[in-house]
Every structure is written in C-alpha cells, then in structure tokens.
C-alpha cells in the first residue's frame, strides 16, 4: 500500500497547537524533547557507573534538585509518548518502513555519519541553550518567552548560514 499524503500543514499546526495548549493548561509547562533524552543519558550513567554518578559535579547537582531515579521525569514519559504517537500515526498512514532517507548525492554511510554528528551537535547545543526546537522554540513561542524566541532565531539563523556549505548533503 502506498503511504498516505501528509496532513495539510496548517491543519497539522492547529492540531499541534491544541496539544501544546492542553499541555500548558493541565501542567503549566510546555512540551520538550532533548530533556527526555537527557534523562535517559543520566539513567545510563547511573546504571553503568554509580560511583561516578554520585561524585561528578553535574550528576551530583542534578540528583540534589531531582531526587529519585533520573527516569522519573516528566519529559522522559513524554518522549516515550512521542514515539508511541508517531508510530500510531505511521501505522494509520502507512508510513512505517525500515529505511534510510537522505539527499540524492550521498551514500548511506555518509548519511549515517552526518546524522550522528548532527545529533551530537544538537544534543550538546540543546543543553547549552536550555532547550531544543520543542522545549525552547515552540513552547517558548506559546508563552511569548524572549529566551525561547531568541533560541529559535539562533537555531534557524545558524542553519541558514551553514546550509550553503553543506548543500551537497541534501540537493544536487
């Protein structure tokens, strides 16, 4: 079966906006993503090297402000939901398929390498900037936060600045 076309972007946006609004109404906070990945990272460190987890500055500080298991965090549960929701949507619209998506001019190996590098930078940047496109940019816009909007402009501004140099990755 052929994958169904994507939803009208404005309709999808309104839907996403209502999800965000509901979240703010119920919990008083917005959505996020990188923070959930951080919880998983902290959990990994706690399991693999408990002593390290208890002594090194960042982890010790985190434990003090967030007692209990690092997985016991709002954003971790939220990103599990994100994966489930995306999977459901993929099933409904016939888009679940084990494949690799890339620009026309590069090999699979190159794509994987750059995906890891990009993820690494995004992960690092999200911690410095206190939030990613979801937590800072989207949720920040909903509450008109200057911090969120400046982060958003920095993300997109920087992406536009370097887009030209990496055009071979994506277009012919």
């Amino acid at each position: 079966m052929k994958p169904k076309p994507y939803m009208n972007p404005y309709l999808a946006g309104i839907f996403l906006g209502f999800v965000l609004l509901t979240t703010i109404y119920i919990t008083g906070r917005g959505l996020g993503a990188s923070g959930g990945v951080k919880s998983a990272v902290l959990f990994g460190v706690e399991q693999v090297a408990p002593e390290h987890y208890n002594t090194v500055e960042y982890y010790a500080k985190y434990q003090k402000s967030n007692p209990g298991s690092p997985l016991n965090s709002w954003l971790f549960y939220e990103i599990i939901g994100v994966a489930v929701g995306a999977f459901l949507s993929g099933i409904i619209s016939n888009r679940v398929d084990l494949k690799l998506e890339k620009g026309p001019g590069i090999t699979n190996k190159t794509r994987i390498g750059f995906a890891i590098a990009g993820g690494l930078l995004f992960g690092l940047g999200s911690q410095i900037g206190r939030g990613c496109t979801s937590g800072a940019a989207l949720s920040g816009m909903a509450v008109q936060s200057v911090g969120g909007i400046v982060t958003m402009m920095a993300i997109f501004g920087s992406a536009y600045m370097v887009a030209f140099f990496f055009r071979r990755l994506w277009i012919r």
Partner: protein
Amino acid sequence: MAPLVPEILSNEFNLVIAFIVGIGFGYALEQGGFSSTRKLVGLFYGYDFTVLKVFFTAGITAMTGVILFGHLGWLDLSVIYVNPMFVWPALIGGGIMGVGFILGGFCPGTSICAAAVGRIDAVAFVVGSVIGIFIFTEFYPVFEPIMNMGALGNLTLSEAFSMPSEIVGILIIIIAFVAFYFTSKIEDRVSGKDRTPAKETQMKYAVVGAIPVLVMFLVLITPNKKEAVMAEVEQNSRIELASSQLMDIDKMAFELMNRAHLYNVIDVRDTASYKAGSIPSAVHIPFDQMYERRFRSMYRQPYKTNVFIGDDLDQVRDAVELARELGDEDPEMLVASVVEFRNKVFNPVKPTGDVNKQRLDEYRFHVDAKRNLEKMEERLKNMSKPVVREKVTIQGGC
C-alpha cells in the same frame, strides 16, 4: 482555574499526563511531515516549507489559547513556565543546534518520531544526541562559565518591548502570515510548479487566519476576569450588608472566647500592620493578594464562617464582596478597626463613680475577654502558624 498540576492533579499523575500528551505530540509531528528528514531540511533549501508552516501555526494557536484562557481567568498566567533568557547560552547553544540541524537533518523531537516509524538515519541521530548530551554532562565544568552569561530572567516579549501581549501576538501572527505567503511563492519558484490554492481555499485560509487576530483584539479591548470581578466588587460593596453579617467588638470578643472554632478570622491589612498586632487567631491575606489562587480554598471552605477584619472599613467591606465573588457564601466583617478592637478589649477601663449595673457588667466582660484572648494569643504564638499555601512555581523546558 488551571494549571491543574499540582493543585488538582498530583505530580505522580502528571507523568501519566506526560505520556498522553506525548502521544498527541508525536502523532501531530508525524502527520505534519516532521518524520521526513528531506521535508525538514527543505526549509533551508527552499523546496519545502511545510515545517515552518506547521511550526508557526502551532505556536500561534497555542499562544492565542494561552492569552484567551488567561483573560477569561481559566489559566493562572503568573505560574506557568516561561523559559528563562540567558543571552549567550541561547545564542551559542542555538548556533550549535543550527549546524546540527543541517548536518543531521533532524531535531531531537523529530528524530524520535522518525525513529519510531523506522528511519535508520533518525536512529543514528538519536544516538548522536545521546553522545552530545553525555559530553555536556561529563564536561560540565567546561561549559559552566558560559551557562549564566547574560541572565535576564523569565522575560516575556511583552515585558521586553513594554507592549501588551495581545499586540505582540498580533504582530507575530502578521509576521507568520507574511512568511506563509512568501515561502509558498519560493516553493513554487524552486519546484517550477504553480501550486497557488484555489480561490475557495484561499478564502478558507483567510477566515481561519482571521480568528486568532480577532481573539487577540477582543482580549485587548475587553476587561479581563480580574478587572470584571473587581468592578463587580466595587458595585456590590455600596450595598448595605445585612446585620447578621456584621460583628461589633463585643460580639467578636464573645464569639472568639466561646466559639472560636466556628470562625476563621482574616486580616486584610498590610504585613506591617498585621505583625504589629492583630486579633488572636487571625490569618493574614493582604487585600491586594486576595484574588490569588492559593487563597481561594480558604474562602470556599464550608465549615467555618470567615470574618474579615482591617483598619480601613471600606476596604474590609470590599474584601467581603471579593470573598463572595470568589466563592464565600456567608462572609462577615468586624465593624470596627483592629486597633479599636485591641484598645477596647485589651485595655478595659474601670468605670468610676456612680455607675449602673450594665456598665459594670460590660467592664467585667472586657476583663474576662482580655484574660481569655491574651491567653489565646499566647497559645497561638507557640503553635505553628496557620498553613498558608506557597505560590507554586512550575519547572519546564528541556
């Protein structure tokens, strides 16, 4: 009044909420096309601006809702999480994220979506983001010096530009609409196809697009919930209170001595006056904080009668009306100032000369009241102060 966490829903249940809204988030992102890396990156090469359209529409929808809910008094905007502004971390972190976006073709949320529908490159991106975050936590001392540079607090655009948030909202909407129009033109030029929607569709877009602008405009020109309540209070406080709702000094003293458990005395003066001495057992809610959500349960409690006290009787009268607006069914007030109460009860003057029995009885009552209430005051001083709920602050962000 929302947010529902932590007052109505517990923090534990909040994690279930997180999972449920996460499903909605993931579903919306996937349906919007965010699980396709080519679609995401199209934004930067001009062939597909879907992401920008979904993103801005979502932001505008949520922003309009937040402003409307706040205006109607459904959502307490003073406690919701506003991402703090740190100038340098935002610029440096954002700059790094932008490069990551071009190299990897995802952002953290979209990579999870794409991985969930089986995109191998997205799995690689998630692995990369785990490594990136690990580098940050492991080498935190290296990044720490820049983390707090340019701290401006939880600043909102409306504070930064000293403009009402509705005007800021309307400006953002206009910017978004202009962006939608021009990016569609760019898309057409890059793809070489004219995909201008039919006249009818254009009309639909215009109508839907006008809704948030109209909402913002109405919010701007109509009084908000608090203003409306205050106007009502001002009007109602001109009406005489029924005598059953009024307490004079002697009645108050008598009730406190004999049936203190039936009353909840609320002092609405400022903190300095309250500290200088109030009526024994009185809790303190300054008049200008009475509207705050944390005190509301006190007005609504059904077991005790609230008695409002203060020095400015007009203000106490307003406090009674405000409590009534906020759910108190039988508020009462002391028809004398706190200072008068203390003078009369704590400094009884023995009548001299030829006095009738009634004056003497009154005097004996005051001596008795002084003894009892002083004891009561002393006892309460040693007890823990009445529990006043702290203002909740909500943590958010990534």
